[in-house]
Every structure is written in C-alpha cells, then in structure tokens.
C-alpha cells in the first residue's frame, strides 16, 4: 500500500510546550503556520500550553494573542495514544461525543523540554501520528549535552572536554575558567561562566536550571560560534555557515535575549551569513557536520553548533534537533523558501517515518512452551 501522499496529507503545526523556550516556539510555529496556510487552507494549529494541555487554535493568529496564555476561542484537545484511534481528540461538545482531529503529520516546532527531548516524539509514535524532526532516540541524544559530546569525541570528532559537574568533585581535569551548562536543555538558558570549580559547585545548588544535572567545560574566550544547518530529505544537504553576532558587541556568549528577543525570534538576530572563513576550515566544518548528522540520527532540519578560532581550530559544541525558526534563515545559497522547506519535512515524515514499531519474532513459540507461570517463578 502506498503511504499517504504529502499533497493529500492533513497537516498540523504543534508549538509551545512546557519548556523555557515556550514563547520562542510560539513564534516558530506561527511562522510555519503562516507559510503553510496558503497551500494548505485546512491546516490545524495546535498550541501546547505551559501546563501540558493541547489546544486547537486558529492558524492565522498573531503572537500577541498568546501573551496572556491560551488565546480566546481555543478548544482543548487530548493526545490519545494506543491503537489506531490515536491522535488529537476533542473532548466532545454538549452531545458528549469526542472526535479525532484530521491530522496525518505534525510539523514539530517545539523547542526545548518534552518537545525536543523525545517525550513528544514517543507520544506521537504511540498515537500513530507522523511528525517532522528528530525521532525519540535522536531527540533524547540531542538534548543530552554530556552524551552527545561523549559520542562525538569517541567517534573522533574534535570536542572540548566536557564532564559531569558533581558537588563533590575535586578536579574536572582541565583548568578554569569554566562554562557551566544545564545537561539537558535549550542552548542558552541557565548557561554561566565561573572562575573556578568551587563557584561552579555553588551554582549547582542555586541555579534552578542546573537541578536536573549540569556539565562543565573550559571557557575559551578566543573561540566564537559557527552554526550550520542540515537537511536530511531528500538527501543530506548543508546550509551556509553562519557566524552569529552579539547585539552589543561585547563578550562572546550569546544570551537568550541576543538570540530571541528580536521581532521574529531567531530569524532576526544579527549574523554574518555566510561567515568569512578560510576554505579549509569551512570544508572541515562541513565534513564534521555530515558526520554529526549520521551519528546523532538527525532527521528533518537540525542546526549544528561549532566553536572556532577562525583560523584552523574548531570544536563540535552541540546539535539542536528542533532549531529556532527551523533554521529557515540559513538556507541562502541556494535560497529555500520556508514553505518549500516545510513541505520537504512533511514529505520526509510520511515517507520515512521516525520509527516503525515491530513485533516480528513474537510468534507465540515462547508462550506455547511456557507451561504454568508458577513453573517460571520457582
């Protein structure tokens, strides 16, 4: 049987989510909805509230409608899992009958938290709904800075030493100053530069973002950020390399405000695109990006962040599997319109689903030979 064609598929955009990047995700989601609405007038917009509820909202809303919380006119829906009747279900009007929203594919615009760490992906897998972006496994790996760095380093890619920050450690193996980052979490929130390990350990108790775990790595003020986006469908493609710039020119660590508080979120942050780099460095970074894409099982569009001195040295920093504005601003040569990017993600989601659960091999043999359960317990 042929899969549903992308043209005929019914698409929903999901954005928001219980994460610190909730507001940024709303911007990404509304931008995606606006880009898709022209060709898909039946587009469903699903707003995932901060407290975990999903709401069906009007796809042409502006950001201002979400300032106070759930917009007027929103209808609460539940994500139902388990079996073929999974999906987003309304709670049923006065007649008490609930109905499932017509959704074949979800365009995932949720940054950080359960939208980008595998929880949403797993739930959608169980609900039988296709989705763009990383699979559950890829998402979880991407969100875990420690696991990702370990994997990249073990595969031979250049990485800065990154270790788990523990309250009772004596020596991480490299001198300060250090950058302390939440182990799981969005790229800018909760990141701090500290002079010594003692301060880092003190921050463990004080900074709420570090409570679920923290990593520490050396602070290298001589290095700056270089980012590149990748697309995996129909084939592996890299965008131009960008060098994000800080709005006030001081220091090198990009904060939440630098990246997100422009009128369009990430898309309007200042940058040098393409970054002016020696050809050899650009080629090496491109090669590393390809390697990271394979290792991290990236899917959809991901943004890989590097650190470099601009001459010859570079290090793999992290991968963002649901990047801000879905990295649409990085596709400049050749330019890819946002709608086209989204359509390729939708096609990939349908043709190459994230996971196909399989029960192959469970053919009853073990059960037939089992005898009584009591026998197995003794």
């Amino acid at each position: 049987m042929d899969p549903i064609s992308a043209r005929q598929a019914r698409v929903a955009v999901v954005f928001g989510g219980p994460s610190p990047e909730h507001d940024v995700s709303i911007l990404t989601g509304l931008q995606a909805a606006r880009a898709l609405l022209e060709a898909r007038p039946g587009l469903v917009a699903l707003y995932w509230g901060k407290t975990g509820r999903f709401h069906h909202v009007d796809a042409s809303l502006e950001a201002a409608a979400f300032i106070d919380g759930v917009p007027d006119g929103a209808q609460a829906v539940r994500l139902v899992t388990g079996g073929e009747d999974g999906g987003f279900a309304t709670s049923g009007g006065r007649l008490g009958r609930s109905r499932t929203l017509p959704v074949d594919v979800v365009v995932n615009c949720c940054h950080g938290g359960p939208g980008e760490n595998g929880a949403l992906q797993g739930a959608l897998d169980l609900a039988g709904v296709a989705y763009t972006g990383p699979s559950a496994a890829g998402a979880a790996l991407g969100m875990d800075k420690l696991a990702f760095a370990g994997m990249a380093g073990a595969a031979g890619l250049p990485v800065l030493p990154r270790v788990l920050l523990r309250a009772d450690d004596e020596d991480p193996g490299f001198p300060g100053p250090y950058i302390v980052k939440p182990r799981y979490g969005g790229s800018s929130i909760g990141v701090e530069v500290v002079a010594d390990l003692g301060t880092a350990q003190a921050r463990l108790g004080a900074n709420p973002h570090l409570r679920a775990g923290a990593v520490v790595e050396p602070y290298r003020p001589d290095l700056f950020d270089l980012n590149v986006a990748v697309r995996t469908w129909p084939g592996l493609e890299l965008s131009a390399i960008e060098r994000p710039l800080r709005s006030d020119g001081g220091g090198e660590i990009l904060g939440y405000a630098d990246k997100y508080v422009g009128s369009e979120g990430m898309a309007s942050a200042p940058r040098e695109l393409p970054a002016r780099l020696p050809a050899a460095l650009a080629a090496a970074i491109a090669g590393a990006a390809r390697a990271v894409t394979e290792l991290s099982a990236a899917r959809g569009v991901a943004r890989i962040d590097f650190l470099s001195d601009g001459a010859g040295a570079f290090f793999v920093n992290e991968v963002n599997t649901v990047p801000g504005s879905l990295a649409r601003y990085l596709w400049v040569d050749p330019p890819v319109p946002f709608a086209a990017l989204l359509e390729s993600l939708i096609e990939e989601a349908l043709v190459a689903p994230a996971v196909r659960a399989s029960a192959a091999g469970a053919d009853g043999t073990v059960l037939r030979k089992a005898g009584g359960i009591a026998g197995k317990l003794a």
Partner: protein
Amino acid sequence: MTLVAASVGHPGRAAVVALVAVSIAVAGLRWLRVAQREHYATGAASRFALRWWTSSPLNALAMLGARAGLVVSVRWALGALATAAVVGLGPLGLAPRGRSAPLRWTRRLRTLAVVWGALVAGAVAGGVVAGAGPLSAAAAAVVAPALVDLACLLTAPLEVRLAGAHVARAAARLRRVHPTVVAITGSYGKTTTKGYVAHLVAARHAVVATPASFNNRAGLARTVNEHLGEDTEVFVAEMGTYAKGEIADLCSWVTPDIAVLTAIGPVHLERFGSEARVLEAKEEIFERAACAVVVVDDERLARAADRCAGRGLKVWRVSARRRDADVFAGAEDGALSVWVGGRPVAERLPVDVRPENVAAAVAVALELGVPAEEIGRLLPTLPGAPHRLERSVSAGGVVVLDDTYNANPAGARVALATFERAGAAARRRVVVTPGMVELGPRQGDENARFGAQAAAVATDVVVVGRTNRRALVRGARHGAGARVVTVATRQRATAWVREQLGHGDVVLYENDLPDHYP
C-alpha cells in the same frame, strides 16, 4: 389628532416597533461593550450611561428628546421613532464598535447578550400583546443600559458556578505543585512590586508571576491552569479587590506563605466607600500567611504591621524614608540606595524605580533565601514596568514620558517630580491627562488637586475627554500661568503635541482612559 393616531394603523405600529428594535440592538452593542470593559460589574452600564448622557449639552438635550418621544408615544406611535433615533445614534462619542477595545464575543458576553436580548424581547412582546407596542419599545430603548445591568445580575450566579470549575482545577494544581506563594496587594504598586520580586528571585528559583491584569479569582485560576508548570518553586500572585471578602476568598485556595501590602490610597473608592474599608479588605491577606511584608511609611499600615506581629507573624517593616527599617530603599534625584537591617547594600544606583516597591521586593527576596550581596548585584537591572514613567525621545527630539498605565494620585505626584526634573531646561513642558477615575466621592477634589500640581510645573496642561474636565480645568486655572487646553480624545491630544512641540520640549502622558469613558 386622533385621526393621525388612527392613520398609523397596525402595520404602521408594527413597523415602528421593528425600527425601535433595531435601534435597541445597536444600543445594546454599546452597553454590552461597556459591561465587558468593566468586568461585568452590575451597575456599570447604568453608571456609564448616566455619565455619557450628561457629558455634553448635546447629549443631554438628545436624552431629553428621547424621553419626550417616550411620553409622546403613549398616544402617538411616531414618538417612539424619535426615541429610537436618539438611542440608536447616541450618546455622541460612544461608538458601538469601540476604538481602543472593540467588543469581544467571548462565551461570557454571548451568554449576557442572549439574556439581555430575552429581557428586551419579553418587555416589547408584552407591550405588543397589551396593545402598547411602540410605547413599550420606546421604554425598552430608554432603559436598555439598565437592562444590561439586570442581565449581569441574573447571569452572575451562573458565571460564578462556571468559574468554580476552573478554580477547583487550579486549587488542585496548586496543591500538587505546592510552590512557595507570595501574595501581593495594595491600592497601588502591586504590579511593579511583583515585577521586582520576580527579577530578584528568578536566578535562584523557578518563578511564575501572574500576568499584568490577572489579579482576581478568574485571572488567578487561569494563571495557575495555564502558566504554573510542574517545576514552579515560587508563585508570585497579585491580588486585587473591589470588595470586602474577596481577598479572603482568594487566600483560601492561593494560600500565601509571604503576604505583601504595598500601599493604601483613594483607589476604587467608588466601590469601597472609604479608605478605612479599603485597608480592612486588604488586611485579609494576612489571615493565613506566616510572614508579612508591609510598607510602613503610612501610619495606618504601620499599625497594620503591628497587628500582624501581635498575631505571631514574622513581619518585615520596609520603608522609603527611615534607614532603620528592616529594609530601606530611597531614591534621591533618581539614584537608588538600599539598606538592610541598618546597613547599606547598594548606594546611589542610577535606576529610576519606585523605592517603596523595591524595599518590599527586597524583603521578599531575603525571606526566600536570596543573599543580600546577590540582591545588590541584581538591583541595577531592575525592570521598568511598561508605560509607567517610560521615557523615550520622539523622532523630532521631544522627550516623551509615558505614564499612561498609572491611575493613582501618588504615582501621578512621582511622575510630576520626574517631569519637572526632565523639563528643567525645556522651553515648553506639557502635561496631557484625562484625570483619574474610580476615586468615589473624592474624584473631583483629587483631580482638581492634580490639575493644580500639573499647572505649577508645566507650561501647558492638555485635558483629555469630559470625564474629569471640569475638575481638572478648575484646578489648573487656579494655579500658576500654565495654559489650559481641552481636547476630546487622546488622539487629538497627540496630534496637538506633535504640532506644537519641538526639539528639547518635554511631554508627560499621565494616565489614559479607555474609550468607553466620555
């Protein structure tokens, strides 16, 4: 004459009733919008109707015409048409759709509209059956606002029940997440203090604060249900109140660990009656709290703080005047100093803030375990509240002080002081204001006083709208030689400012009334 009456036979009378019904529908849009903007308070529509119909000679005359038409329609159906015309077209200045805040067809408004429509239809139908169709239609037209109030009264129990479901959900959620609750109340300074608390504590704890206007039962429930994540450690809840018992009710499910009282003033006096009653209502916030933070510069609040201490609460007495208070915050020439326990924590920081509110917020932060040094480091970046003495410079070089979100006399005085400093060297200094509302019996005096204070430091005073025109003009003309200009709307005022002012001049926009005020 009887011939004329008889000649407007049954079809004619039916047509008249239909026309009047159309004009009642248009009028309905206006008064329903007023009810919505006034948060469905019973009596609001009638109060505003009175204000509007007496706001100008033209409107007053028109209303007399409507009443005359009503009397005439006892005998002659055509009289009702006059009433219809007036009620449909007026009062002049109050548009059915509204500029600054159009009618929003929320579920609650639809319910209200249906009930109101039923009342009107019932009244008119009854009249038609009794053979006095045009008369009853005209009567319904004249009392349309009162019928909106009646509809509010009738739907109130239903709304309370519906809100109850959201409140129950929110209460359960609060019990599950059990954050430390900081509750803030006061006649003014609540929102600003809440912003400061969130800023000082956010580096250490996951904080959720109620968004700007969500300070009542429905708003708090909505904040908890839509914004309070599982990981929330501190919940900062602003609590507003219009009547005795409301805060006690809120505290029954949003139980404060730390309760803050910022100030008592002549705000919402229309509904409370006196400042003593305001204080009584606000003091309910301490009933279940373990810790109290009180700005004790006002004698009455100092006594309230003592009462808390007497009941066994831990009390932080904060002040913007006395350095020996538990927390002192003072602003001289726009530079902030903060002292804790008689010792300085920050001196002469160049931030423009409200010192009483900073003092209260610092006390809360200390109570939540934020060390004084860390607080000192966070003070320079205290967030300004939007539209509260926000300063900007226009393209033409005019310095604009935007204090449009301030609605109380104390804030207005602070604004005038800043305005005076900012405009010391300016050729022209302009204050644009519609005055302040909800001051009950003191509204006239407070506005006159403000008018005089403004005229003392400004070269021009622009009075917007009619709500407080008389009092403001009286006060402004009383004082020094400031020129007094009256305009109908804020848009006209802005146009005047753009025309008249040039580089280096200063304009202060003090308060802004929504367009359902005359």
